[in-house]
């Protein structure tokens, strides 16, 4: 189990439950170091004073804030400490709201809360919150402090645990005013066709069906480079243009989509490779271990797979 990021207590009313906080997401990205091309040595970042053009040690660096009137205020660690939030070890539940009233746009980082300690009462209180929140479809709103910053949080039940999500404050969600919302309302016949097209491509939400192809390709690029192979950038693709006749395009799309959904399906073997997306071709190329596949365009993949 991962290390906890924060420990403290969850408090609602006069009930306090000792809890530990764990991230509910994990970074799977491939990370690189910056190197000097010439000698392969690691790049270091050094801090320089622009006035003097001299390197400056960390303890000689302060935090500056530029006021609107052009004046600069230099703030020290002590200044920040003085305004550091008071209750740093408590998640205070201040309200319960209906879960469906919250727009997920406000959600920031997801975490889990797990009860800690041996005491029976607090662990039962945790269980109690899980049960009651699940029954009522409510979500707890509270505040807590982590790394000297105060967060607004929503606590809900996920996988039979309390899940805490940090939230953006109302003024951190931008107004959508002035953003173009498109043209005229579609005619009924057109909307019916569009709905039919959406339904023809309908599927259940299955997160595990979606793989991170970018990560895969990057791994492949690294593996190829390690073997000393050449890596070339993909060619720029053509940008599509809006269709002049929406209704005709809808009808043709619908015919394509229903053809794809019924019968043996175009994703099975023996079909026309040119109909597959680059991603599907790439997956096949991986299975067939086609050399140089990561840098191939769609057409090159079709050729490589077709000749194999």
């Amino acid at each position, binding site marked *: 189990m*991962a290390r906890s990021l924060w420990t403290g207590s969850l408090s609602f*009313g006069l009930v*306090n439950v000792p809890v530990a906080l*764990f991230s509910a*997401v994990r970074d*799977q990205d491939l990370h*690189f*170091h910056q190197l*000097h*091309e010439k000698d392969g040595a*690691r*790049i*270091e970042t050094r801090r320089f004073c622009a006035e*003097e053009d001299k390197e400056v040690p960390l303890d000689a*660096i302060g935090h*500056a804030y530029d006021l609107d009137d052009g004046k600069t205020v230099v*703030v020290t660690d002590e*200044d920040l400490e*003085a*305004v550091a939030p*008071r*209750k740093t*070890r408590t998640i205070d539940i201040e*309200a319960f*709201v209906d879960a469906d009233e919250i727009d997920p746009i406000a*959600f920031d980082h997801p975490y*889990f809360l797990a009860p800690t300690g041996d005491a029976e*009462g607090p*662990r*039962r209180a945790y269980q*109690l919150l899980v049960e009651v*929140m699940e029954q*009522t479809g*409510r979500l707890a709103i509270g505040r807590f402090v982590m790394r000297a910053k105060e967060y607004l949080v929503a606590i809900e039940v996920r*996988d039979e*645990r309390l899940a805490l999500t940090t939230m953006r*404050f109302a003024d951190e969600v*931008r107004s959508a005013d002035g*953003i*173009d919302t498109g043209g005229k*309302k579609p005619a009924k016949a057109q*909307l019916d066709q*569009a709905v039919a097209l*959406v339904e023809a*491509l309908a599927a259940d*939400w299955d*997160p595990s069906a*979606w793989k991170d192809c*970018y990560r895969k*390709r990057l791994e*492949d690029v690294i593996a190829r*480079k390690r073997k000393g192979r050449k890596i070339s*950038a*993909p060619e720029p*693709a053509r940008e599509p243009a*809006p269709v002049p006749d929406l209704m005709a*395009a*809808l009808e043709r799309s619908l015919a*394509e989509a229903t053809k794809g959904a019924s019968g043996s399906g175009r994703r099975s073997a023996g079909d026309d490779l040119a109909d597959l997306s680059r991603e599907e071709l790439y997956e096949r190329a991986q299975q067939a271990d086609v050399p140089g596949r990561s*840098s191939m365009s769609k057409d090159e993949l079709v050729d490589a797979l077709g000749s194999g």
Partner: protein
Amino acid sequence: MPRSLWNGTISVGLINVPVKLYTATESKTVHFREVHLEDEGKIEHRRFCSKEDKEVPYEDVVRGFEIGKDKYVVLSKDEVAAAAGDPAHVIDLEQFVPADDIDPVFYAKTYYAGAGDKGGDAYRLLHDALERTGRAGLGRFTFHDREYLAAIRPRDSLLLLHTMRFADEVVPGKQVEYDAPGRKPDKREVEMAAKLVDSLHERWKPGKWKDEYRASVLDMIERKAAGKQPRKPREQPPEETPDLMAALEASLK
């Protein structure tokens, strides 16, 4: 009128919907810039070669993927970009799933997807069709040299684009282990807790919740600018309550 970050096309079948992406959220956390305390000079971060002890221009910096101690597979910026994905500015929607079935934990970042300069009718059509079916479109697109999975769903009269986390980036709850209580909460406790939840129930009004920490940092900065000194507050640890029922009852008084 806000500035768009990305202009491209959402495509469904043969329908192309030109869109422009805008950031939907922005952090208002107070950020400071680094200064040299002695002369308030601006601090610059400069790249140095650790071997030569010399400054290195950005053009001479490459990416190293660590495969062992001090052993790297070296990639140029172009080689890293080769993995980016289809460079076309297209979000090809492959599937439509019930929007409510997607746990928001999968949403990484949210953008407003407004209508592009042409094809406003197609935009409206896609929006209305998604609204009527209650579905979100899923597709991949390349943004800032990396491919993302995106979910497109309607919100009011606009479309939203969420970049999505992949399944292996989301931690399943069962990996968060804890000891269950010796006995389950009894009926009376559940009823009391439900009452407590009810007593704290309110409508969600996002504007009611202010960033008090941000306000106090800004206040401190203003006081400091005016030559005043701030006061130092103290921490109060919470009390633990072993008797759950008593605590619940006391909370409701």
